[in-house]
């Protein structure tokens, strides 16, 4: 196999089914006898449930059951737990169906099961719920005010947890002796993930074997099985199979254990029929975990030489009404630990207060904590550069961690393993023509046109996760990954991974690597994922972990296969295993090319195995559990160029350029695609997207008529390249690329817009930069309340 597939832009093997409409998503499934569910959801952000009268719904033809929270609680169904605990954290219960109070708009109050979806939806309207509306609170800082309505009775001050990292005294001292300081009060806008496939779940219970199967839109089926078995329903783990078939995007929103999955499992057993539920988009808006939603005061100090001496951050991170699976990790370890960015800042302190509010839960959304950190840091850097009268690029350059400083220990727990930031920055500047752009900008300003250039450098920590490290930080579970490589007698290879592909192209990229390692045609490899019934335990896909962690496990498992194959070859060729080399797709005796066995020969003999020596096990199969030594640290430079129309305040993206470093690239087609999509999501946050709540906790942008997703004409063709700095501690030197685009682009676009507005004396505006907000800033008038009255 002279031509390695690693690095080749191979077309995806998963595509034929998607482009011909033969993909297999959860809602596409129909089982014999299947019935469907519709949820009765609270229209109030906060209300006491006084009475539920299901009698009309129950007499509606075709209705099979109306399930309440009390019924499920009485049946022994427990609260949904969270997976990450901080000291002193409050974890009030989160029942699949609430029975005492509704705590956010969309909280499930009852579930209607009927012969089909039409009937279920009709009958859901017939369930009469007697609510006593209560005062609600939507904004994190409002929830912390004395006298604010409590979301949970046993957390009267609404404080879920507080958390801090860094040496506060050293930071305060650095500020006291600073040459200059800047301070920004900023809001990181709340986002709705909006994977294009709405969530769906289908449960089947087989009485004969007492077995459950749950098909669900998940990024991590094993986590569901574990949570449902061990904590929520007490189903013996070997009697529950969770399958995540084709999944139409996740971006974090399909990590969590959701109530509807518990409800359909419960109903399937209760009714003895398969039960399916599929979200309408307007349900997705109020039930899929949201992202971001920080209120932050961020400060930076520099010395006389323009070196950053300290960063101080105080954040209120809105948790929403309940803690979902990863929520406590996001505004803490995935945020505070990233505040060094690419800079040599010696002193950093970050304090976080996380309140409950009467809003949809907030958890990881693409980037999860890292976009928030990058945004505030890169905003501070631009504002400080302006204060110092320096070009923002030169200010960055002065503070970048130099290439000879790695491994680099930051003051916020992480140790960066490798990096070459300045070379990456220079490549991007050269590609974009930075000096010429600045010249054009000056020229256009004379004509009354406002170009903005946003340059940011970023670092992220991904490849979740080194188990011991995250355990020491509060994780209740390590995040190693498993792989099982099974060679069949004919030399075909099944690879089972605990990661899950919902758009990332694992079936292709992983197969390329396996084909290289085993020196076999890529067509002979199939990647299997998303089914707890088929693969060993695994933790799924999020945190850009699938390649650095999941594929590393696969590579090490394939190397076990090669070692075993050499032993088999040695036996067949009557040589010593030490003399067998694996070259050109063959196992041969070193220096004797005639004495060789093909992979097919080895695979077949491994299974026929009728004349084996006693010390050689039959079969050809290997499992590996890979626990990374550290996170991986992709980095890069992103540059956005925008123009602001001063008459309307509308921001137009003119150019977007990124130079990413994710180490060696397995498949450029796929890696670049990840960057493109990530950039669009980050741009969405900067310019278009916001989950807007009114004071009563009603979401005002709860569908696509009000919540703006980036469309084709909001984007431009992205100019993109790579630098390659391998990760020193995994077998292929690879790093993650799934979140980088989003982590970087929000800050790049934000800085570009603020750069365009600089002639108007505007220092900072909160995202999203909607036309009216920008227009008002330019024209100096005060913003009016956003909500319609």
């Amino acid at each position, binding site marked *: 196999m002279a031509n390695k597939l690693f690095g080749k832009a191979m077309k995806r093997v998963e595509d034929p089914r998607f482009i011909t409409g033969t993909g297999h998503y959860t809602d596409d499934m129909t089982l014999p006898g299947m019935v469907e569910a519709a949820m009765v959801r609270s229209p109030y952000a906060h209300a006491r449930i006084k009475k539920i009268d299901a009698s009309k719904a129950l007499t509606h033809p075709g209705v099979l059951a109306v399930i309440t929270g009390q019924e499920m609680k009485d049946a022994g169904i427990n609260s949904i737990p969270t997976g990450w605990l901080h000291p002193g954290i409050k974890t009030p219960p989160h029942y699949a169906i609430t029975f005492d109070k509704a705590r956010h708009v969309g909280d499930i109050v009852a579930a209607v099961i009927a012969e089909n979806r039409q009937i279920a939806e009709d009958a859901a309207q017939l369930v009469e719920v007697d609510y006593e509306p209560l005062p609600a609170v939507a904004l994190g800082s409002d929830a912390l005010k004395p006298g604010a309505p409590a979301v949970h009775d046993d957390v009267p001050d609404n404080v879920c947890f507080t958390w801090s990292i860094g040496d506060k005294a050293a930071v305060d001292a650095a500020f006291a002796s600073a040459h200059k300081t800047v301070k920004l009060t900023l809001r990181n806008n709340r986002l709705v993930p*909006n994977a294009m496939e709405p969530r769906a779940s289908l449960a089947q219970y087989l009485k004969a074997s007492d077995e459950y199967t749950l098909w669900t839109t998940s990024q991590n089926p094993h986590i569901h099985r574990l949570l449902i078995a061990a904590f929520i329903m007490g189903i013996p783990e070997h009697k529950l199979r969770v399958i995540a078939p084709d999944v139409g995007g996740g971006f974090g929103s399909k990590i969590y254990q959701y109530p509807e999955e518990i409800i359909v499992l419960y109903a399937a057993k209760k009714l003895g029929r398969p039960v399916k539920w599929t979200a309408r988009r*307007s349900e997705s808006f109020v039930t899929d975990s949201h992202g971001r939603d920080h209120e932050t005061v961020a400060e930076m100090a520099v010395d006389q030489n323009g070196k950053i001496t300290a960063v101080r951050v105080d954040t209120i991170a809105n948790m929403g009404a309940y803690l979902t699976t990863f929520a406590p990790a996001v505004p803490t370890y995935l945020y505070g630990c990233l505040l060094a960015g690419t800079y040599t800042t010696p002193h950093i302190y970050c304090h976080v207060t996380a309140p409950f509010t009467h809003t949809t839960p907030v958890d990881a959304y693409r980037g999860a904590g890292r976009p928030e950190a990058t945004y505030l840091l890169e905003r501070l850097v631009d504002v400080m550069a302006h204060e110092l009268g320096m070009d923002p690029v030169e200010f960055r350059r002065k503070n970048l961690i130099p290439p000879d400083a790695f491994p680099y220990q930051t003051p916020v727990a992480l140790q960066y393993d490798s990096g070459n930031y300045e070379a990456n920055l220079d490549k991007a500047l050269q590609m974009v023509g930075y000096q010429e752009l600045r010249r054009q900008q000056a020229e256009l300003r004379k004509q009354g046109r406002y170009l903005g250039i946003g340059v940011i450098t970023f670092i992220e920590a991904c490849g979740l996760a080194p188990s011991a490290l995250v355990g020491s930080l509060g994780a209740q579970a390590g995040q190693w990954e498993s792989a099982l490589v099974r060679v069949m007698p004919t030399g075909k290879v099944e690879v089972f991974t605990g990661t899950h592909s919902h758009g990332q192209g694992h079936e292709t990229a992983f197969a390329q690597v396996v084909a290289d390692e085993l020196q076999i045609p890529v067509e002979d490899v199939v990647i299997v994922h998303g089914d707890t019934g088929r693969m060993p335990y695994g933790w799924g896909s999020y945190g850009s972990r699938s390649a650095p962690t999941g594929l590393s496990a696969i590579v090490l498992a394939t190397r076990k296969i090669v070692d075993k194959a050499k032993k088999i070859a040695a036996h067949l060729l009557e040589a010593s295993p030490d003399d067998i080399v694996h070259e050109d797709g063959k196992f041969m005796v070193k220096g004797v090319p005639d004495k060789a066995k093909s992979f097919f020969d080895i695979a077949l003999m491994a299974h026929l195995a009728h004349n084996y020596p006693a010390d050689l096990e039959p079969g050809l199969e290997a499992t590996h559990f890979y626990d990374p030594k550290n996170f991986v640290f992709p980095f890069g430079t992103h540059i956005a160029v925008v123009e602001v129309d001063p008459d309307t305040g509308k921001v137009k993206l003119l150019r977007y350029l990124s130079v990413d470093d994710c180490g060696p690239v397995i498949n450029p087609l796929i890696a670049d695609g990840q960057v493109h999509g990530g950039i669009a999501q980050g741009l969405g946050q900067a310019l278009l997207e916001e989950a807007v709540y009114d004071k009563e906790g009603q979401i005002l942008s709860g569908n696509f008529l009000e919540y703006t997703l980036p469309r*084709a004409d909001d984007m431009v063709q992205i100019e993109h390249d790579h630098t390659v700095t391998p990760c020193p501690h995994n077998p292929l030197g690879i790093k993650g690329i799934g979140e980088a685009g989003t982590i970087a682009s929000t800050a790049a676009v934000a800085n570009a817009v603020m750069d365009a507005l600089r002639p108007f004396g505007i220092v900072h505006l909160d995202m999203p930069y909607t036309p009216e907000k920008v227009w008002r800033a330019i024209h100096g008038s005060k913003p009016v309340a956003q909500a319609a009255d």
Partner: protein
Amino acid sequence: MADKVHITVVVNGVEHHHEVEPRLLLVHYLRETLGLTGTHVGCDTSQCGACTVHLDGQAVKSCTMFAVQADGCSITTIEGLGSPGSLHPVQEGFWEMHGLQCGFCTPGMIMAAVDLLNKNPNPSEAEIRHALEGNYCRCTGYHNIVRAVQYAADKMAGKVAMAADD
């Protein structure tokens, strides 16, 4: 229950006769009655375009019409556009240019792109972006979707010599 209505439709070249409830949306008729699950539902406000099919040769959102309105019409869904052995140039373009990731918006996106090229065989980048205004994709940032449509336009104009062979 409201009286059912008899409809006759030709879907992907096959004639079907059914008695349907008036409120049955065309997309549910395709997915649930005919089992053609390639057409997807991504929203409930007629915005996302995942449900796009061709009705008498024009792209429409099958979530925003009732099956009864399609009576007497000819419908093409993604399943009828091309098969793995004989792909439509737009399908081929999406594959070649990596115009999809999770695949959920893809059928609707392809049907909208085919509609564009039927009406404008040589669209500019701006015209492609405008024509896809009714189709959301959350994965690709549209970059490779635009390239996929350009590839298909070139292919249909005979500018691409042959399909990739792998």
